[in-house]
Every structure is written in structure tokens, then in C-alpha cells.
């Protein structure tokens, strides 16, 4: 669906992204994790066409995104700083976006969005008067306005409370089931892994990849059970499983981690971190 090849970006000969290559397939949720300054936001800005890369190619269904007519129509983007007008209300902001997106019936679509994201209590309030969480939901609704096939999200859960995060995870799973591809960044590993089909790791502008890379991971669960060992052994690529009460350690490839996290959810996964 979206193919990124040898993406390179530098400012005044300082490299920010180096030879970044990956692909996003239809209907999958891909997490994008890295430390601050690793290049997550820059990658998303390039994919959303806010920045032109120095070199490399990005193709959408086989066509270059800069020339593909339908790419921007099929893509939605929630940046880290939301493009909302503070003096306009939630409804006005959404309606403006719907009109910019040339939707057939913008009013109707805005009503749907307000209902879908439970914004009716704040729909007539100016953005400047809202809490960060409400603004974040408005920003997500804004990006979802034209029901894009590809949704790019930069730190989408910042500002959301725990229940809000749960609602967000559940919403992501729903849109995935409807065929939407989601690519989202975060620096909180457990949050990404709980919902992603796979995770891409970025460090100093490069993706960490290769089958020989193995990480040692430590997890803490709330409801330890004798079946944990069996569950983990059933996941291909997981080795060196050691269970000590509620604490579990294991070795696996970084790409396997989401599966590990998802399998431990039923045991009440509380914490998951990389030891080495």
C-alpha cells in the first residue's frame, strides 16, 4: 500500500533520517517507537507531505505520492501540535476541515464525527477553552473527517487519560477491522505494543531491524497463571522464558514484542520493558 524506500532527510547537511525503508500494508496497525529526537515526527511529517525529503521515494499503490492524485485524499494526519483554530469552536473547526476536504455533505459528516468521538458536550466551545484531552479528540476527529485509508498519528494519546487511551485503542482496532492502515508514533512502548500488529524501531534516524537482533524483555503481570509459560512458548521466536511470581523475563526479536504484549493482556499486563 505505502512503500518507503531509502528515505533520507537532512538539514544543512546534518542527517535527520538515513536510508529509511519500510512498507505499510492495508488494514494493519504499525507502531513507530523511538527516543526523543530519533526522527519519528520527521518521518510522519514527510509521509504526510508537510516536508519534502532530501532523497528517497514514497509510493502509494505503486505511484509516487507527490504525483498521486488520491494520496492526500486517502491520508489523514494527527500531528503532535494540532492544526486547530483556537478561537473557533469544535464544530466550526471540523466543518472547515470537512469543507477543505470537499466532502459531499460536510454538516452531516461533522454531526457523525461529533457523535462518534463523543464531542457533543464541547461542540460549541472554542478550542482555546478546552482541556488537552478534548483538543486531542478534536484533532483525531479532524484527521478522521474524510475517513482516510491511511491514518498517520504522532503521539496521539498524549493528553488522554487512561480511560481515554482505552477508548482510543478500541477505536483503532475498530477502524483496522474496517480496513484502515494506521501508522502511529509514541515513545511509550507498552502503549504501542498493546495495540499494534508490528512495531518499527527508530534510533538516530535509522530503523533497527534484522533477525539476529534479540532483546531481553521483562514483564510484570497482575494475574500470574501456570498457563503463561505455555502461551509464551507458542509464540514463534520467544526464547529463554523465566517466570518468577508476577515477573516474567524472556528474549525475542523486537518485532515479536507486540504479540508478546497482546498475549499477556489476559494475564493483566502491568509493565513491559527492555532490559538489554
Amino acid at each position, binding site marked *: 500500500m505505502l512503500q518507503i524506500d531509502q528515505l533520507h532527510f537532512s538539514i544543512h547537511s546534518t542527517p535527520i533520517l538515513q536510508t529509511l525503508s519500510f512498507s505499510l500494508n492495508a488494514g494493519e496497525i504499525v507502531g513507530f517507537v523511538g527516543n526523543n529526537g530519533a526522527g519519528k515526527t520527521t518521518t510522519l511529517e514527510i509521509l504526510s507531505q508537510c516536508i519534502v525529503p*532530501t532523497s528517497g521515494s514514497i509510493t502509494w499503490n505503486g505511484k509516487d505520492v507527490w504525483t498521486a492524485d488520491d494520496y492526500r485524499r486517502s491520508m*489523514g494526519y494527527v500531528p503532535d501540535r494540532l*492544526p486547530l483554530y483556537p478561537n473557533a469552536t469544535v464544530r466550526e473547526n471540523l466543518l472547515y476541515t470537512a469543507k477543505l476536504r*470537499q466532502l459531499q455533505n460536510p454538516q452531516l459528516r461533522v454531526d457523525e464525527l461529533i457523535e462518534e468521538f463523543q464531542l457533543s458536550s464541547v461542540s460549541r466551545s472554542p478550542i482555546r477553552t478546552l482541556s488537552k484531552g478534548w483538543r486531542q479528540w478534536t484533532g483525531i476527529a479532524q484527521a478522521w473527517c474524510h475517513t482516510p485509508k491511511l491514518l498517520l498519528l504522532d503521539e496521539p494519546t498524549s493528553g488522554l487519560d487512561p480511560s481515554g487511551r482505552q477508548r482510543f485503542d478500541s477505536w483503532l482496532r475498530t477502524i483496522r477491522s474496517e480496513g484502515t492502515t494506521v501508522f502511529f508514533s509514541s515513545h511509550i512502548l507498552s502503549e504501542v505494543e498493546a495495540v499494534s500488529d508490528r512495531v518499527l524501531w527508530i534510533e538516530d534516524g535509522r530503523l533497527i531491524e534484522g533477525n539476529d537482533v534479540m532483546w531481553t524483555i521483562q514483564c510484570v503481570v497482575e494475574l500470574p497463571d501456570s498457563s503463561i509459560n505455555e502461551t509464551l512458548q507458542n509464540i514463534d521466536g520467544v526464547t529463554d522464558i523465566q517466570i518468577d511470581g508476577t515477573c516474567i523475563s524472556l528474549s525475542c526479536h523486537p518485532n515479536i514484542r507486540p504479540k508478546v504484549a497482546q498475549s499477556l493482556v489476559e494475564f493483566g499486563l502491568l509493565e513491559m520493558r527492555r532490559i538489554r
Partner: protein
Amino acid sequence: MSLRLIQTIGRWTFAEFFRSWIGWISLMGFALLNGLTLSMMLWETSNPLLAGQGVELHRVLLPKYFSTMNLLLLMIIPALTMNSISGEQVSHRLRLYQTAPLSSATVVLGKALGIAYFLGVLLLSSFPLIGMLNWHADLEWTRWILGYVGTGLAGSLFITLGIWSSAHSRKPLTSWFLATSTVLCLWFVGAAQGFPILEALSPLPKVQEYLDGWVGLLDTFYFFSLGAFFLYHAQDGLSAKRHLSGRSWDVRLTPTLWLVVLLMGNILVSRYDRYWDHNDTRPFLSEESLYLLWNEGNLLELVIDLEESDFRYRQITNHLRTIELSGLETPVTWLSASDRPPSKERGVTLILKNEGQEDRTLLLTSLYPEDFYAGLKQLLDPRKKYLCFTQNGGEPSLFDGTSPNGFGLLTEELLRLNYAIHIIDPRKKIDQPCDLIVVAGRQTPINDEWLDTHLEARSAILLLDPATVGISESWLNQSGVQTKDDFIIEVNPNFQVYGNPTTLLLSQYALRQHPTLALANQSLLLSEVRSVSMIEDNTQTLTVELLHASPQSWAETNYSSDTPSPDDADIVGNVPILVEVSSLQSGTPTPKMMVMGTSSLIQNSWVEQNPHNARVFIQMLQNLLRDTRPIPDTPRDTKIQMTTAEVRNSAFFSILLVPGLIGILGVWRRTDG
């Protein structure tokens, strides 16, 4: 690029102004300043100086009002446009446009449209003031509409320039600074006379043509082409915001190439420039041309060789109509197809008949007013009169049209009337032709012999400042004129201006009956005047006192006193100001010299307030040059004159009521929202 999207962005941009206080404050501030300037202009109409005259509505007040409005827009618009692109970038909202299926051109045009809507509202806020003017005087609707069109076009140009600077700046403040400085530069280079390229670049002369009631093809082309250039370059700047790592030089050079194309386009269009004049009764020919025709019209003949299908046919019929309306009977011959020599270029041939000499002819192929005037001038120029000025040692204040003491405004009028002007230095030989010498407020002494030698051959006007030491008293006495180191004090408030006893208002009552000089219903305004009286026992000349102050006036010699009062040393009552000296050598009196006790008559500050000062000076010139040509009067205009109470009411309306209502509406809308 979709028009619907442009409209969507435009409406949103417009609405954004009113979602915060910015829009309301700008609107109220504009209305307030606009009302203030109009009130100040109207206050002038109640000036006692203008007793019975009023201010010309369409020629003076309206263009001045719209010019000020343009200056206000020039200051306001960069502040309105600074956020259009760079503000969106700083607040990260540019991503909304960058990720949507929109072109940069759509965004730029939408933003421009939104600010243009706001400009429309700003202009709309001035409508009540125009309505108020119409209430007091009969406004020509075409004139104020053209005023708004010109102002709207200039405002739109400022908007495109503001968006251009915003698209090329990273911070709104930088954008504001760039836009304001560029607009100011563009505007004021238009005032630089003698630099055609600068004038071509500036919107100032174009706007002035609109304000004068003319719509020119070049002016319109200028606004659209320069506006398009700024918008094109703005969308280029917006696209460049995606290129954080910089763009190549060839891309940056493209706008420069466009600018060159634009300038060439303007030059090309100027060759085929045409005007639309809203008023068919207005003389299409310039006053300068008419003046030449009045002088030489009986010796001139026009041979017209044009077909009706030729666009110049309409031009020449327009010129002929103007000539006819001016009461001139210039002979005209229309050539038919059979009369026409086969290879001759078509146009209008001007033929100047010279008695006893061969006729001089000139074929005009371009008949635009300025070309017609140039042709007339080329034929008739040798007949112009030469004026030699000397003032402070030959300093060029004669061409200074801005400082209060300069004579630039008079000079413009003299050149318009086809007089040639030289500045001479009395310490040197006069090389130029010279029909008349004007000594105006000269402070460096002039040698008596020099005066004798040069005035023997020609006549002179002497304008004496109170501080003048340029001409010796003994020489003046010998010529039949007496001056004193004094100031005229006018105590009659009816003949003072601004309550100042040294600023005199003189009307027909003060002028002795004279064959050339006349004030009719006009007035003269003079400041810091010294007495100039005649010496009766001079038998060589005939001296006549022509102008005097009121019977209550006196010429105070002890003017440094705190309590000046008339005494024996002073001339008391009807103090003379202007003296004419005529030679009796030929038997009949021939005017040779006129001496006035002040040079304020022709100083910019007074000529600007009272153009009739310059007219009286021209009458003095004509008297001495024995020039019987009529001074062409400017076309008649509606005049507006208001009483103090009416001015007060209009000030209340324009300074308090209109801005106040806008403010109340703003508060209501904001609190309601």
C-alpha cells in the same frame, strides 16, 4: 484549483478576524482615523479664509480624503496579512492545508480573498461618511465610486504584497516589517519626479489618476499584473515551506524573471495606454494644451486624416469638442480618401501659419492628450516667456514643492502655463533669455548697478520679505518706492486668519481698480507683510499703490515691543502692500516693476491653502509682460462649505457615532459569541 475551495478559505479567513478582537479593533480604529481625517478636512471648509469660496469637492477634498484612506490602509494591511501564512506556520496550522488535497495557489488565493473581504468591510465603514458628504454637497457618484475602485485596487495590491511577504517570512513580525517597508518604498518612490522607472513601479500615480476620475488601461494593468506577480511568488513561497533543507537557485530566480516580464509588460501596455473619462463634459485635452491654443489658436490649423474606424478618430473628435467648449475657433480640415496622398501616414497635421514666413507643420500620429500637448509645444515653444528668478543667492527652493517656504507649487503652475523658468545669480552675467526678473525674498544684497542694467531692458517683480536686505533702500527710493523695516498689524478680526494679526486676509475691497489685477470673489492670504508705499515726488516714473490692509491696520516699526501700538513712526490705516511702478518714457505709462512687501504670496504653505495667491502672482506677471492671454481656469467643481455647527455635527458623526457603533456591535457580537 477550485473556486469553491478558494471561497471556503476566504470566508474562513474573513471570519477569523471577527473571532478575536483584532477584526473589531482594526475596523473601529480605521473608522476612527478615517473620521478624524475627514473632520479635519471639513474643519478647513469653515475656515474664515475661505469666506464665500468653499473647498472644491471633487478636485480637492475627495482626492485628499481617499489619499489619506490609502495611507491608512498602507499601515493597516501589513498587520492584517502578517499572520496569513507565517502566522499559520508558527501556530502549526499550515499542516491543515499542506495535508489537504489543495494546491498552494488555492491557499494563497483563499487567504487573499478573505483579507480582501475584510478590506471591503473597512471601505464599507467609510460609506456613512461619503453619505454625509453627499448630504452637505452634491457628490458626483462616478467620482466617489472611482475613488473606492482606486483605493480598493491599491488595498488589494497591498494585500497581495502582504501575503507575499508572509509566505516568505518565518515569523509574522518579520512579515509585517518586510511588507510595511516594501509598501512604503513602493508608495513614496512614486513621488520622485523625473525617475520614470520608479514612477512606473509605484501605485501612487495610478491611484491618483483614479482619484482624479480617470480610468487608465495602464493603471488597471499595473494593479492586476503586480498583484498577480505577488500572488504567484507567494504560492511559490508557500510551496517552499515544505523544503526545510533549502531550494535550488534556479527555483529562487524564477520570480525575478517574472518581475522582468512584468516590467516589460507594463512598458508595452504604456505604449497603447488609453483612458476612460467618466464625464463627457470634462475637457479631454489638458489645460496646458488649451492654454497654448488660447494663445496661438488663431494661427493654428488642423488637418485631420483619419477614418471613423480608427480609434484615434474618437480621440480627435473629443479634442475638437474640448476646443469648441473652450470657445476657440481653430480651423479644421477633414481630408477625405480622395484628398489623401497615397503613401502618407495617417494622423492629424498641425499647421502653424507665420505671416510672411513659411508655415510650420507637424504630423501627430498619436493623439493621446500628452502627445497632443507635446506636439503643440514643439510648434509653439519658441513663443514662450522666460522668467528669471533669484532668491537666496540662487538656492533651488523654486523647485521645492514640499517645504513651507519653497516655491515649488507656484513653479508647477508656471510650467503648466508654458512659462520657462531660470534661476539666475546676480553676481554673474545672465546668459539665458529673460523677459522678466523676479526677486523673491532675497537676503544676499544685489548690486544697484546690476538692477539698473537689467531692469532697463526688462520688467521685474520684487517680493520683499520683512527680513530682506537684498535690495538697497536708496535704489527703491530712486525708483519711487519706499519700504520700511516694519510689520503690518491687522487688528480687524474680519481680515485676520487664525486670529493672528500678522496674517492678513485681503479681498477685492483692498485692491485698487486695475486693468489686469482682479480678485473677483477670491481672497489673498499673506503673512508677515511689510509696508510698501510710493514716493509721490518722483517725476521719472508713475507709482501707484494697488493693495492695502484695512483702515484699522498699522505698520509697526517697533515690532519687538511686548505691547505694539501705532505711533508717529508707523504708517497708520490702509497700510499699502503692493506698488506698481510704470515708466513714462514712451509717453504712456508702461508697467515696469511691481513691489510687494512679502514673499509669502508664493510660498508653498500659503499657495496650498489658497491657490488664488498663485493666480494673483500670474496676473502680476502678465501685467508686466503685457501678456493678454487669459489664465485658464480649472473646470468648475462643486464646492463644499460648512458652518462651525455643521462641522461639529459631522465630527460627532464621523469620530464618535460611526466608530462607536462599530465598537458596540463588536462588544455585542463578542460577548454574545
